[in-house]
């Protein structure tokens, strides 16, 4: 049953086989996607017509590889920008929230903490439509009372950033809080006894200690933002992010250029995952 107990050969073998099947199940779609990116065919399917890099580098007119596909390249750039701003804002606000809930006491703390956890249990689609409605209401209100048209309140780049930030900040706050809970408060007290200000202590001591957790959370926030679909779907304006753009292409029939993009995404995320893992190993 467990390592220290004897088990029959047949049982051990079939259990191992089951777990192998599970891993095949996990990796099969990714593997097939990557392999078919190199098929010399106009459709992402078998049979295999030979190895080709067309779907990466071809420049048309029949085949347009990803490196010459301006629409998809623009979507990738939009996603990078969105993810950058979301990671930045949610790291700052999430860290503030971690300090607030771990180190301060104030009335209605529990209520506020509950509100902070709420994005974990609100489906992303609901978050998207709520923000769309609220932004529209606010935009209409401002236009009617002041006669100013604020583009921020219409589906746009910054509305997407706002929407993604609203739930990703919660994840950052939870990760940083977990790290802050392990912090030894006597270090802060010692510094304050020696005359440091509270802000000085936070800047020179606590934040230094939290740095790996903050960078790790920032990387996760970047990735979550880059891949978000549900919330973005309702807030996106004329600049689609990569997942939205890919979705539209997959829905309306696909070419192997999607496989090529997927391959790049898989390689990119694996690399980022490794970097993040390296950082989280270091902090333990």
């Amino acid at each position, binding site marked *: 049953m467990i390592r220290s107990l004897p088990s029959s050969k047949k049982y051990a073998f079939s259990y191992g086989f089951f777990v192998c099947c599970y891993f095949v199940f996990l990796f099969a779609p990714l593997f097939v996607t990557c392999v078919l990116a190199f098929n010399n065919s106009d459709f992402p399917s078998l049979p295999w017509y030979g190895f080709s890099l067309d779907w990466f580098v071809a420049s048309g007119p029949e085949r347009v590889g990803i490196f010459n596909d301006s629409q998809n390249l623009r979507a990738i750039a939009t996603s990078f920008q969105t993810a950058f701003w979301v990671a930045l804002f949610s790291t700052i606000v999430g860290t*503030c929230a971690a300090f607030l809930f771990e180190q301060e006491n104030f009335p209605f703390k529990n209520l506020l903490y509950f509100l902070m956890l709420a994005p974990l249990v609100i489906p992303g689609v609901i978050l998207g439509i709520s923000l769309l409605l609220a932004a529209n209401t606010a935009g209409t209100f401002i236009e009617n009372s002041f006669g100013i048209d604020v583009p921020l309140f219409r589906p746009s780049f910054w509305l997407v950033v706002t929407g993604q930030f609203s739930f990703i900040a919660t994840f950052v706050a939870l990760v940083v809080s977990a790290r802050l809970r392990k912090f030894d408060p006597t270090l802060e007290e010692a510094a304050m006894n020696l005359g440091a200000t509270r802000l000085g202590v936070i800047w020179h001591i606590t934040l230094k200690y939290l740095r790996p957790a903050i960078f790790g959370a920032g990387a996760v926030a970047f990735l979550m933002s880059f891949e978000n*679909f549900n919330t973005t779907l309702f807030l996106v304006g004329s600049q689609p992010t990569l997942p939205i753009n890919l979705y539209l292409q997959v829905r309306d029939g696909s070419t192997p250029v999607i496989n090529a993009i997927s391959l790049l995404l898989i390689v990119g995320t694996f690399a980022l995952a490794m970097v993040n893992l390296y950082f989280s190993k270091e902090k333990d």
Partner: protein
Amino acid sequence: MAVPRSSKAVFWIFLAPVLCWLLLLIVLPHLDLLRMSFAGENELGDMTWTLQNYRNFFTEPIYWNTFLRTAVFSIITTFITFLLAMPVAFYIVKVVRPRLQGAMMLMLLLPFWVSELVRIYGWMILLRESGVINHFLVKFGLIDRPIEMLYNDATMIMGLVYTSMLFMVVPLISVMESLDDSLIEAAYDLGSSKSVIWFKIILPHCKPGITSGSIVVFMLVLGNYLTPNLMGGKNSLWFTEQIYNQFIASFNWNQGAAFGFLLLLLSSLIIWIGLKLSRQKLGEVAS
């Protein structure tokens, strides 16, 4: 605690951004959602308060059928995910050689870092009529002509299980790591069967992990749009698609807001029941 740790200025530096975030981006939008769901046009075309949006939901069978279907399928998916995740988590924590443990954990996590869209796209390439699996089945003479394996309920559920698997496996692994091996050894030495060990020792110990995993998986499945839409096709009848249609296709935001609020109510209700049944608090589950 000789030195007072808090100072007013620092407290406000922390509080202000958090308060802005929670009030402006969480509380107000959801109040607006509630308000919009009770608004509608009367015969003259003016906006007024009305229950019509909710009445439509209960009088149109397609709406509440889709709602119920989504709820039931989400529960089934959560349960299947649990059944599949349990042995995998147990294998990694208790059975496999410790040397392989780290590598297996990594292998388990990696696919879930990849965008959901890419993973679903991979399944579409595998399963569709011109897909890879059909190609091999025909080649080896197991079937005469390709079968369409996409666009049915079983495939859709498999896709949902696949996309949310990780959120069940990880909490189960972390809770199993605290299970003392000697408990299982003692039960074994005293002659209990495997099923007794599972039901009397392992499952009760894993309850917190099961709760938090189930809540997250359920919420993700219920609110999923991509997987039902791409793998279930036109027959998927998922409630989020109704919301999308009201917002984007029909441009009836009031109706969409009512649907959204009903979905929010359903997910909160089921999560609340889950927490009550397992006697846990949301804060414990989150951490």
